[in-house]
């Protein structure tokens, strides 16, 4: 039996260069970077003093959280995720369920790597001071990883799956595929899928300690994130959230919903930390398998892919990623699809990267453009030797792509690849 068709009917985003979809779209079209200096990181003696984080006024939260929810709220990832999630729901033309009966056909799959780090820090201090009784009721709900799906599920009144997945930097892309699978199998009609990542020194410190963040661009933040560039020197830490309403085509048509794109399929796998794969590096064979399986399950050919939105973090692994795409697709030089990396504009939003980048990918499909990569005028020679320079655009241009592949790779040697297609009713 052929699986049911699954489409995207709503988008929401909290990105370093845009705190709603229209602002974000303008930024990616214009090449506006969201990377800026963060005084706190400098004061704490980080090597890297720059980061990408959504910029908004605290009063903005009143539109999304009630007074009780706001009391003692100290979880940036919760703020980003709730705003992006609620925006996506509204964008899809869905309403908040205010009846006493949950929506049994609607769920939430919203991933994160770690949640409420600042809240947890506050709790640790109180506990160590012997003041555990002073924690109040807000510590658990803000620091449990599933706090984000729990908040959203409760706000919306969802009665289907409400869960949080976690697979490092592939979390967001994985969440979309989990939603796709559940809907395609007929076990749900609508799922709010996405991911979020806290910001701040306690999230980024571990990466700074690994010396994988750039430290030579502290005075020039917008130049720091350089995916595919010869002068790439590490990923700029980022944060935010992306959200997508994933829905069965049946349900979307019944509601007369606007359809942004179709999900043809995808694949997730792991390299088992074997054969070159490790906790922090991908097994190339597994990456290629993941891409190939995504293509196969989507019922398309490698040649059908018009563009790629890569993982491409701006570390030394970028040329390897390009090589893996070339081999998986068996396409190179001028035959290679256009490729871009959102990280040049927002940094690496970690667990949120896959969902924010998927929002960017779908906007490209829906609006007919390919956004330019900034900071890679000096294409890495090992990339230049594999694909044509023009396949890595530095400026946004009009292009009506039919199919775009999006992949994310994460610590733990885990991979996720999803195939998005421009929606066509036939």
């Amino acid at each position: 039996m052929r699986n049911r068709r699954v489409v995207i009917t709503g988008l929401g985003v909290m990105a370093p260069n845009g705190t709603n979809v229209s602002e974000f779209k303008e930024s990616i079209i214009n090449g506006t970077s969201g990377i800026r200096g963060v005084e706190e990181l400098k004061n704490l003696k980080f090597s890297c003093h720059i980061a990408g984080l959504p910029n908004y006024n605290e009063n903005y939260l009143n539109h999304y959280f009630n007074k009780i929810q706001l009391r003692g709220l100290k979880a940036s990832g919760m703020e980003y995720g709730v705003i992006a999630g609620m925006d996506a729901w509204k964008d899809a033309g869905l309403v908040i369920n205010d009846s006493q009966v949950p929506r049994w056909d609607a769920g939430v799959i919203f991933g994160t790597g770690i949640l409420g780090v600042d809240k947890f820090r506050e709790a640790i201090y109180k506990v160590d001071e012997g003041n555990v009784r002073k924690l109040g009721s807000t510590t658990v709900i803000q620091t449990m990883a599933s706090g984000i799906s729990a908040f959203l599920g409760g706000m919306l009144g969802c009665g289907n799956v409400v869960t949080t997945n976690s697979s490092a930097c592939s979390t967001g892309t994985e969440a979309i595929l989990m939603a796709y699978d559940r809907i395609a199998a007929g076990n749900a009609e609508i799922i709010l899928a996405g991911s979020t990542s806290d910001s701040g020194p306690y999230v980024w410190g571990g990466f700074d300690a690994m010396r994988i963040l750039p430290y030579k661009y502290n005075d020039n933040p917008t130049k720091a994130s350089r995916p595919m560039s010869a002068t790439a020197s590490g990923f700029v830490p980022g944060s935010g959230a992306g959200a997508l309403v994933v829905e069965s085509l049946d349900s979307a048509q019944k509601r007369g919903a606007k359809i942004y794109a179709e999900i043809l399929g995808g694949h997730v796998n792991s390299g088992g930390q074997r054969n070159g794969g490790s906790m922090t590096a991908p097994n190339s064979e597994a990456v290629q398998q993941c891409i190939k399986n995504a293509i196969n399950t989507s019922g398309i050919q490698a040649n059908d892919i018009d563009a790629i939105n890569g993982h491409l973090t701006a570390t030394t692994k970028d040329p390897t990623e390009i090589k893996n795409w070339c081999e998986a697709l068996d396409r190179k030089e001028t035959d290679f699809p256009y490729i871009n990396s959102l990280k040049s504009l927002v940094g690496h939003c970690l667990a949120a990267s896959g969902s924010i980048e998927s929002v960017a990918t779908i906007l490209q499909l829906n609006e007919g453009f390919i956004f330019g990569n900034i900071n890679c005028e000096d294409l890495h020679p090992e990339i230049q030797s594999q694909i044509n320079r023009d396949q890595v655009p530095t400026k946004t241009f009009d292009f009506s792509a039919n199919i775009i592949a999006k992949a994310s790779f994460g610590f733990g040697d885990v991979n996720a690849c999803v195939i998005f297609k421009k929606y066509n009713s036939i």
Partner: protein
Amino acid sequence: MTTKEDLLLKLKTIITPYVQNQEGLENLNEGTDFIKDLEINSANLVDVVLDVEDEFDIEIDNEAMEKMLTVKASIEVIEGKLAAK
């Protein structure tokens, strides 16, 4: 010395953000039950107690806290703690 009216007023201010039944709040009296009449989420009762501690500069032990389910019981606990200061 805090009068009972003062105390009731302060308590009302503290519980207001947690109340889900506004009608119950408007009719607040000594017999009001936090959960039944005001529909305060039981998880939030600890937050009410912490706010009471801060407001009156007292410490409420677990045993006293378990009693604080109505306005009347809460006022008795607060008065007791204030008298013992």
